[in-house]
């Protein structure tokens, strides 16, 4: 069959190739990265948040349905297992990681070199779930840190 000249012609057109890496990076950041860090942050602070809530209910309000089971099934076995490092890891290091990762995911720094100075721009994302994780993890880290410094155990 004789080839269609117009189809042949269209097949030979030089197609313009374009790239948009800046948009690609920004869109990916908006779509994926913040959500992921919020999810991981929530996981990392779940246990310490539960623990501190239980402590507050037990010693602050005098109601303690959660504290004893937590102590009996999680923290006492950790202490008796010899892996005492797990306790500060769970209560301090993991919330600290959640704090840092989520804070980084909702802030963006850009430095533009000028003639005589560097212009530093700080952009802040209104990603509420990340900010809640930042707030909660910061609070947990502060409370545990103050408790450890006071040596009140």
């Amino acid at each position, binding site marked *: 069959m004789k080839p269609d000249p117009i189809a042949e012609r*269209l097949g030979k057109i030089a197609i313009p190739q374009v*790239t948009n890496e800046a*948009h690609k990076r*920004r869109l990916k950041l908006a779509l994926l990265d913040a959500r992921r860090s919020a999810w991981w942050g929530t996981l990392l602070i779940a246990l310490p948040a539960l623990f501190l809530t239980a402590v507050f209910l037990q010693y602050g309000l005098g109601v303690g349905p959660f504290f004893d089971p937590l102590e009996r099934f999680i923290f006492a076995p950790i202490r008796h297992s010899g892996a005492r490092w797990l306790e500060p890891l769970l209560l301090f290091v993991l919330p600290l990681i959640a704090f840092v990762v989520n804070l980084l995911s909702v802030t963006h720094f850009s430095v533009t070199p000028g003639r005589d100075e560097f212009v530093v721009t700080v952009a*802040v994302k209104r990603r509420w779930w990340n900010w809640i994780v930042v707030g909660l993890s910061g609070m947990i880290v502060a409370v545990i840190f103050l408790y450890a410094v006071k040596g009140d155990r």
Partner: protein
Amino acid sequence: MANDEPLHTSARSNTPEAFGSLYEQYYSQIFGYVYRRILHWETAQDIAAEVFLKAYKSFWRFRWSSIPIGAWFYRIATNEVNMFFRVGKHRRDVSLTELLDKEGFDAPDARTTESEKANAERELQRSQDFLLVQAQVRALPAKYQDVIALRYFEGKSIREITEILGKGEGTIKSLLSRGLEKIRKKLPLDATE
């Protein structure tokens, strides 16, 4: 399209991580496709953002056995492009600007964007032949635009176009043939030589 499919079966999951890999793999193709259809940088960005936002939202229920993932992205993009032409100007559900505003970011890398936009415009200026044909294609009804753009601008095979548009091979061939016939009337061969 089949060649673009993720090679590892582990990549064929519906997790955000898998979507991230697919995004890396398909962003440039989809943005390029939308840009070549629209020929407007900012609008192409907005439409590409919508394509991936819609894909991300419904990715959890994407069935890998239904159509190739690349065809799925192209299908969403084609629908968005047609919606743009149908509705006209910027009546979009969400644009990248809105999306990033919602997320709270301004444009920290505006210079890179401007530079890439300028490169794209230079590339277009070099492709006068493409612009000539594209102008004729854009004057056609959407059904012809889709098949011609996918076949000749994106280099897709007939089978790939059937997967993207969800139509039979006979229908695609017929649309292609009739679309070319309509262009032939408006685009003399010697004008593109």
